[in-house]
């Protein structure tokens, strides 16, 4: 450790979707290291501790060291040649980089998808079906006197969700903090989060939908057969008690995790929960929020949405954005073998995608941008080392509740940012293609003069 220390106050941690912005970082300026991360949780501490500057090549082309510029040229050539280039990742980078990536996909007539599709993508689909009553996290802190965690383990995945936003903090109408709240946790197993709950409801695996559906029926005053207990492991009495409490509270909130989305039922599980929250609004105020994972996955949803109208899984091959999960989402495009090139930004599909998708990644030219070496960067044709957002790079990130924040980086990196590399690739592709690629197919219909008439 050198003596050249500085403190960055109110920095933002981008490890998880909580995006806590109260980090006080002690930075060893000479060593390019963060020595102390005050207020950070265990995950945040590891995040700040481990993101120093490693001695890595700026770029690797076919495993050989290369300059960033050479990598950009190779990447641009690959992408400009491709007929079905897939751009994926983007949850661990800034909105500024995401914005360029969507623009690149548009220019190429490619497909862009984010890690949302394998995270809360099903919740996004559910949202498109039924809508959502939601809130910024401060409303939970200030008002929520009943919070139901469903299918998640925040104590391990989002540690400060409990302490900073939802369970223990005092708020305007919650003067006594934890004491003023009823906390319910629903899961298939006991986890580190279970002790935080007043009521733990253990459901049989794969029966969340049935439980949620029964709750909806009870909220609406319909009958539910007592056989529900055999099916789900939860007795009718427990469900009735829950419903009574839900109707009685002043401000209720569901926070749900991937126990719903990655499970059989997928978007219907999320939709059932969103609909339950909506139903409850006939009696009192209820909101529901998916607990989002990576630091800026919510930003990715927002950027892709405002640029295209759709949150993830967007294809531009016909000259305009099209959305169809299962058709244009990454797992499908890879597992079916549709893509002929891939650009992966700040993500490591080779370590968590299903096997058939990984197999196809090995068959096509892959371009990777990542601060770290990963299984995906190992199989890449072109692998860029980039600076880490929030630690070396400023920019915008969105918290899981869609609140945007500006990052305060701790120390500079010799490596370019994702935004810089993507911009360079885009500019080179533009030259190779002579501007945006002209649309390959006509629009379904001409845009109407009076859309509403």
């Amino acid at each position: 450790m050198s003596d050249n220390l500085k403190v960055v106050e109110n920095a933002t941690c981008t490890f998880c979707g909580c995006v806590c912005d109260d980090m006080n970082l002690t930075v060893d300026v000479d060593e390019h290291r963060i020595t102390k991360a005050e207020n950070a949780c265990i995950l945040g501490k590891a995040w700040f501790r481990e993101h120093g500057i490693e001695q890595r090549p700026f770029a690797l082309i076919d495993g050989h060291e290369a300059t960033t510029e050479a990598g950009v040229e190779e990447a641009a050539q690959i992408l400009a040649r491709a007929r079905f280039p897939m751009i994926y990742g983007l949850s661990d980078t800034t909105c500024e980089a995401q914005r360029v990536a969507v623009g690149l996909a548009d220019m190429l007539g490619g497909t862009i998808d984010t890690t949302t599709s394998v995270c809360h993508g099903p919740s996004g689909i559910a949202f498109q079906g039924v809508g959502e009553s939601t809130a910024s996290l401060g409303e939970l802190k200030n008002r929520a006197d009943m919070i139901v965690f469903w299918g998640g383990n925040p104590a391990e995945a989002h540690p400060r969700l409990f302490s900073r936003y939802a369970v223990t903090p005092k708020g305007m109408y919650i003067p006594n903090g934890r004491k003023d709240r009823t906390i319910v946790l629903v899961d298939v197993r006991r986890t580190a989060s279970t002790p935080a709950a007043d009521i733990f409801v253990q459901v049989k695996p794969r029966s969340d939908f049935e439980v949620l559906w029964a709750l909806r029926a009870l909220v609406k005053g319909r009958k539910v057969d007592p056989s529900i207990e055999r099916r789900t492991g939860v007795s009718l009495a427990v469900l009735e008690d829950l419903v009574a409490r839900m109707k009685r509270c002043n401000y209720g909130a569901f926070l749900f995790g991937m126990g719903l989305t990655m499970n059989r039922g997928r978007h219907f599980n999320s939709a059932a929960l969103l609909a339950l929250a909506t139903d409850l609004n006939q009696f009192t105020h209820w909101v529901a929020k998916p607990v989002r994972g990576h630091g800026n996955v919510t930003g990715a949803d927002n950027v892709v949405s405002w640029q295209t109208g759709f949150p993830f899984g967007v294809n531009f091959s016909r000259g305009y954005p099209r959305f169809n999960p299962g058709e244009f989402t990454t797992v499908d495009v890879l597992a079916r073998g549709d893509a002929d090139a891939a650009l992966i930004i700040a993500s490591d599909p080779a370590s968590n995608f299903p096997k058939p998708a990984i197999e196809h990644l090995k068959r096509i030219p892959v371009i990777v941008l990542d601060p770290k070496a990963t299984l995906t960067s190992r199989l890449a044709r072109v692998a860029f080392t980039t600076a880490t957002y929030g630690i070396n790079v400023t920019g915008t990130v969105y918290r899981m509740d869609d609140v945007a924040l500006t990052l305060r980086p701790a120390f500079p990196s010799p490596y370019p940012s994702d935004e810089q590399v993507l911009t360079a690739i885009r500019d080179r592709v533009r030259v190779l293609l002579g501007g945006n690629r002209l649309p390959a197919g006509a629009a379904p219909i001409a845009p109407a003069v009076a859309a509403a008439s």
Partner: protein
Amino acid sequence: MPEMMTLIGGRTSKQGTSLTHGKLDGEYLEVTSTVEMNVEDMARLGLKNGSRVKLRTPEGEAVLKCKGRETKDLPRGILFLAYGPLSSQLMAGDTAGTGMPISKNLDVEVEPVPDQAGP
């Protein structure tokens, strides 16, 4: 004879912190290659902490170390595995028009691996 059990994939803080450290690193690989299993199930199958089991789905198979959990924490017939390269081996690519592969509550065949069979 292999037994059918239900595998839940998920995240843990240990996986998270080790992931930050680097995915090509031993700790991450250790965390993502250890499956949690109900202690009674383990006893029945003759497994101890650190014993090796083979999990199999129609998509593929993976050999993992096991670690016991009490019944109140992890019911019988349920397995927990942190996401990583080995959980990938068991997942199918079909997303049923959603983009999301199923990684929780997979039906898996569980078979103890005799110690001498390990590398």
